[in-house]
């Protein structure tokens, strides 16, 4: 579904991503771990098309998308949510989701028809709002809702394009334990054919959601395997999970 072959990226003398090779099967849920500065977000930016790799290739559903723009990759089914909320702040939650759904359904290209009134757009809005548990907040402006709701909307926006691969950059960033649990449930409720690649620092969530775990350190893949193997890895404890067992 999503495959990278030896992608590398440098900013001047600093090698941020080194020869990263990943292969995600359809429906796989992989969590990316790594300390701060390990190159996790840079890897996401490379996958999403914000950055172009210096070397290597990225394949999505069998097609080479390395040279495609962010929008072109999104149209091919690659969606992402951001670590920092990247929403349409002045609009209502319904309008936020409606924008994403109208782009997915092609209604955003219409020069005279209101996409928010289209049944297919409304259906996606209702479904996604239900999936991320913000149905009761649909008519509130983003500025007027809580941080937790915005995080849910952040994921909802990415889901409203009906992606086949979803990149989630720390979805539980900044939320409390209760909301974090709600995110666990939400992620587990997502359709099983959706491929998920998640950057996460919340170990409980990582172990709860992940089918496989990849660990980055200094831009390199240092571990790639099952969560159980990650738990027992001395290397990982050394570079990242030192505090995890005691947590």
């Amino acid at each position, binding site marked *: 579904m999503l495959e990278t072959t030896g992608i590398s990226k440098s900013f001047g003398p600093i090698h941020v991503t080194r020869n990263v090779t990943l292969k995600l099967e359809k429906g796989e849920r992989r969590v990316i771990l790594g300390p701060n500065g390990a190159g996790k977000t840079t890897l996401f930016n490379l996958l999403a098309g914000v950055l172009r790799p210096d070397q290597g290739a990225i394949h999505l559903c069998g097609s080479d998308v390395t040279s495609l723009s962010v929008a072109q990759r999104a149209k091919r089914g690659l969606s992402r949510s951001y670590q920092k909320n990247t*929403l349409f702040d002045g609009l209502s939650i319904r309008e936020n989701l409606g924008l994403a759904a109208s*782009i997915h359904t092609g209604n955003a290209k*219409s020069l005279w028809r209101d996409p928010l009134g289209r049944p297919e757009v409304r259906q996606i809005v209702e479904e996604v709002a239900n999936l991320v548990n913000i149905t009761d907040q649909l008519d509130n402006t983003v500025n007027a809702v809580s941080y937790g709701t915005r995080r849910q909307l952040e994921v909802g926006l990415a889901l409203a394009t009906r992606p086949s691969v979803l990149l989630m950059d720390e979805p539980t960033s900044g939320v409390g334990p209760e909301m974090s649990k709600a995110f666990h449930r939400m992620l587990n409720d997502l359709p099983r054919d959706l491929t998920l690649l998640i950057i996460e620092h919340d170990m409980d969530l990582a172990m709860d959601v992940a089918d496989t775990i990849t660990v980055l350190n200094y831009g390199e893949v240092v571990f790639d395997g099952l969560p159980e193997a990650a738990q027992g890895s001395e290397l990982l404890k050394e570079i990242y999970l030192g505090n995890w067992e005691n947590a």
Partner: protein
Amino acid sequence: MFRHTPLRYATLILLFSGAVFQAFTGDYYGLEILSEILILAILVLALDLVAGFGGMISLCHGALMGAGAYGFALLATQAGLSPAVAIIVALILVGFIGCIIGAICARSHGIYFIMATLAFGQMGYSYVFDAPGFGGDDGLTGIPRPDMSALNIDLGDSQTFALYCLAALCAAYGLVVLFLNSGVGRSLVGVMHNEVRMRALGSEVWKIKAIAFGISGMIAGVAGILLAQHSMYVSPSIMNWTVSGEALVVVILGGLGTLVGPIVGAVVFVVLKHQVSALTSYWHLVVGCLLIAVVMSGSNGIFGWVETQWTRHLKQRQSPRLAPRSEPTSHQETVKDA
């Protein structure tokens, strides 16, 4: 997203009624001023579409208006087309020019976007000024008004021409509202709020900006055609960047991103211009002071201030015991509405 509030409807009805009243009761001078207001209102409506709903502050709308005026003038006087056909061809031409400018400038933002549009505008101005066939500094004369005698309408009459301009303004307003509620229009608002996210959702941002700029250019072209028909003359001065700057002043004075506000701004600007210039030639000073006062007040123009006061009044009526401590500024509310 753009919404019509009761206050906006009421203001529109008031403005429309005022224009009709003036058209049927005004003398020749009054009718000429009315036509001037209506033409300026169309231009600022075009500018508000891209600036207020797309975040694209343009300094080339004067040039786009000029392109419409010159396009119509050349097609109607030298290409021998009938005024009706010349209008359609000129509007398509201006829409295309607007699309090209929008597409080229789409990747720039803020001051760079302003400078890029300024450069396009001044290029157009310089070309028209120097190139043969445009009449140079003297401009073009003998521009006809459409012949509507078959409908028993004489556009040579000041009153009829003012009503013709009013009909054009209504059509332009309807077109802008229709566009803002369309898929592309809503995407334009999305781009203004968060361009990065729109790209991540799969939207081709440059296309949205190009289409919006094309439609805006077309509406500015309508203003240009009406201006050329009104004075039956066109000169390069209407393409100068100062005309675009003046239009921007009117939009900010009235209320950016409200559609209704810029029309109010056009009324205030033209009336002030004529009333104050009768007293002193330094009428720009008065307009400048007013603009500074509006900007310093933190309100989104005159109409934005009225909207804020109205919202505050409604809130106080709903909960008389709860006096509002800190009201959001009108601009914040407008952004919310948009």
